[in-house]
């Protein structure tokens, strides 16, 4: 096992494929002082719920929580844009001492007067959890007063890690979608879970599904709104892209509303084709399956040559992957394989045991696998493994660049879609534009030393 930079508590979170039977530790709290790349419970909840476009997102807490998450996602909307505002009760010392409930209810009143939203998500933050404001009661009172839906999101930062925030968001969504009367099921319709419509990705997938004869009932939560989410239980199948954030909701919907779910992935050509077939298979309609095959054949024919042309530039290159969720990591291993690049380091912030098992099955011997990594580990293992490229988020980008390594954005605020066939092309193109940029040829010391 690789030494985890002198912090022995980190050792169980790091493994090398082939060296030992992998039983990677994961889903544990971050270790103090390790500079984890993870955020908090509130962050997990906010990123999942924020794409609900006509909701007022009100953060009950001090200003920072609201400031750092204002319009944090590249989620697009086809209608409302209330979601792009960040409302905060901006708690002050006085409120911390005497309680923030009155301020919260006044804040709701003011937002209602100004915007008349149908729906509020009210997020609790660390100090709200500590001072014990009764979010539930305030939301209930205000909801009755204004005759609208106000949902408290229990997302105090310290009650777990980002995964707990996903769960808090799912609980909030469940409250929203649970109907008073059972809704009639729509035939051949799906709810699309775990797509946040970054750069229009949910729209791309909906176009595919429409083409094969599947209607998209609700999206969780990309480009969604109060009305579309309230229709969710009319869907006949849930398909789930981001498993990290949505497995809990999918399971709940299966138990409570008998809506089965399928795991899908639209990252890369292989996963996109597999997912379309899986969905068509589920509905068991030969005509639908035929349309899916037609779509796959047409898009594959159009896309493959482009990907192949890019692949020609990537001989012998090695990639490192450090992303939020395990399922995304799995898709990325396959997607890199499509473009002829080997993944030599892979890690996630919130991956689960079964996902790490799959990752272990997929990667080659010698690949380093890590959970809840930090900059020091990323630096060490990228260097050791000879990675030419890192996939990650905003915080990881400058580290890669400083090490002279190419970088791919897989973050929340990117401005280009990575889903479906267009996403597969964008991905290959982005790999090309960073890996094959001429700048790397000129990153050498004075006099030409230390080239490459």
């Amino acid at each position, binding site marked *: 096992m690789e030494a985890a*930079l002198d912090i022995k508590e980190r050792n169980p979170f790091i493994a090398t494929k082939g060296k030992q039977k992998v039983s990677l530790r994961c889903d544990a709290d971050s270790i103090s002082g390790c500079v984890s790349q993870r955020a908090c419970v509130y962050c997990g909840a906010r990123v999942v719920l924020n794409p609900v476009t006509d909701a007022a997102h009100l953060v009950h807490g001090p200003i920072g929580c609201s*400031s750092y998450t204002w319009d944090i996602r590249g989620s697009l909307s086809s209608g409302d844009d209330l979601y792009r505002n960040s409302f905060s009760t901006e708690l002050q010392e006085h409120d911390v001492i005497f309680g923030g409930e009155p301020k919260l209810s006044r804040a709701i009143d003011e937002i209602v007067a100004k915007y008349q939203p149908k729906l509020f998500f009210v997020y609790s933050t660390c100090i709200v959890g500590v001072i014990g404001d009764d979010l539930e009661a305030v939301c209930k009172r205000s909801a009755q007063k204004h005759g609208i839906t106000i949902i408290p999101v229990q997302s105090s930062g310290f009650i777990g890690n980002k995964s707990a925030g996903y769960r808090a968001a799912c609980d909030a969504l469940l409250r929203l979608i649970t109907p008073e009367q059972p809704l009639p099921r729509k035939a051949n319709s799906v709810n699309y879970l775990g797509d946040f419509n970054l750069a229009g990705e949910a729209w791309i997938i909906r176009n595919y599904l429409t083409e094969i004869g599947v209607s998209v009932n609700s999206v969780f939560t990309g480009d969604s709104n109060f009305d579309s989410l309230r229709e969710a239980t009319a869907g006949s199948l849930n398909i789930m892209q981001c498993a990290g954030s949505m497995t809990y909701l999918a399971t709940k919907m299966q138990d409570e509303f008998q809506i089965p779910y399928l795991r899908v992935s639209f990252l890369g050509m292989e996963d996109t084709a597999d997912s379309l077939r899986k969905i068509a298979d589920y509905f068991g309609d030969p005509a639908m399956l035929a349309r899916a095959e037609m779509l796959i054949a047409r898009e594959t024919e159009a896309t493959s040559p482009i990907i192949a042309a890019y692949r020609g530039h990537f001989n012998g290159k090695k990639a490192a992957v450090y992303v939020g969720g395990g399922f995304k990591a799995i898709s990325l291993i396959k997607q890199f394989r499509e473009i002829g690049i080997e993944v030599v380091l892979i890690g996630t912030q919130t991956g689960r045991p079964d996902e790490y098992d799959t990752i272990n099955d997929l990667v080659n011997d010698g690949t380093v696998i890590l959970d809840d990594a930090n900059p020091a580990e990323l630096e060490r293992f990228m260097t050791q493994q000879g990675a030419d490229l890192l996939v990650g988020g905003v915080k990881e980008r400058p580290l890669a660049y*400083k090490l002279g390594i190419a970088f791919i954005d897989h973050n929340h605020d990117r401005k280009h879609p990575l889903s479906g066939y267009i996403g597969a092309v964008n991905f290959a193109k982005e790999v090309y534009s960073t890996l094959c940029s001429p700048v790397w040829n000129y990153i050498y010391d004075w006099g030409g030393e230390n080239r490459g």
Partner: protein
Amino acid sequence: MDEQLLYSKNVNENPCHMCMPMGGILPFKGIEGAMVIIHGSQGCSTYMRRHIAEHFNEPVDVGSSSLNEKGTIYGGEANLKQGLDNILRVYNPKLIGVLTSCLAETIGEDVERITLDYRKEKGLEDFPVVAVSTPGYGGTQNEGYLLAVKRIIMELARPTEPHNKLNIIIPNISPADIREIKRILALLDIEYTLCPDISYSLDRPLVRPFTKISTGGTKLADIAKMPGAVATIELGVTASTEESPGHYLSEQFGVPCYQVPIPIGVQNTDRFLQALTAITKRDIPDSLLMERGRLLDCMVDSHKYNFNGRSVIFGEPELVYSLAVTCVENGIFPVVAATGGSDRLTQLLAPIFEQYKQEIAILSKADFATIRAKSVELGANIAIGSSDGRYLTEREGISLVRIGFPIHDRVGGQRLLSVGYTGSAMFLDRVTNTLLGNKYGSYRRSMYEKYYQTGNTPQSIGGAV
């Protein structure tokens, strides 16, 4: 002031400020070999790292004590101590800054006592640990910044024999700005201690080998000697005496303190140089006077275009103050000057604007909902401030000239040069060219819409440009 009524005390809609620990991180990044840890839950440090990394395009490592439920209920002392252990192991720093979050403050963690105990237990009595109390509800990033600078100086400064160096307290300006200040000091042949100094550490050249903590930053030994300096120049006029690090050095060690604005614009740069020459009795070299002349030339070249500018300026009070003065002297008359924090901005700016008969909204504790409403009402046509003002462009068509912190939707926040005569000219050119871009981009269409008439209706002269 009726402007204040616009500001709701219950809702902040799109914040124009950040929290204290965010400001507290930055000075530590400008101290030699320093590393920071935030005592609180994991998200605080991660979000702040993300913001800072995106602005500077630099890796920004900040530890967290990763407080969980147990630590919150039973106290986070063990967590913090483990965090300090791990930071020492991995980063081998020369100094550690410990900042508190809302959470740590609310549960009543005494970081000063905990870090003292820690040093004793580990036999690290001589190792500098700077604990700063930065509750997120206690002020803005501006106060966090000032307090961190002050606490660093309080921890390290020692009574010292008098020496020739000048202390310069640096506010939150870009690394390029700090390098420009150093260049000016070198031209005057002045020895100095700049504190803090992120000019290298948050704008690192690409050199090998990579080190986890960047080299650069103010040397600990130099901070120790700040009490022996000839004088302190604090680049800032908006801090209260209690907040001012320069005032602390003056009170404790008798170092005379000169407060001057961030040197952007001709008056503000003059004031900086006047302070320098008054203290050191040096002459201003011809080359710098030449730069001054070029700035005046730039102002004259651009004055007519700038006179059409009605600016909305927002951000940290110190920067807003300097930019407002600069805008006034160039006729880019401010209609809104706003900050998310300090009331002192209003007191300082109000007399400057009195002589002009135009309406101006000076807003403190403002959010972007207020800034936007006032900008539209008073007809702003150019916005000057951080990236968070991009909504003024997106929603109201008011172009944004980016300056300050954070700049997260463009590259090069760390390379923006705006101070000194040369930097001021560069800043003015950015503003003027934005105004020109707007005019040229639309004048064919706007002239057509205004004047091309098929009938014979007489034209009014009211809309002349």
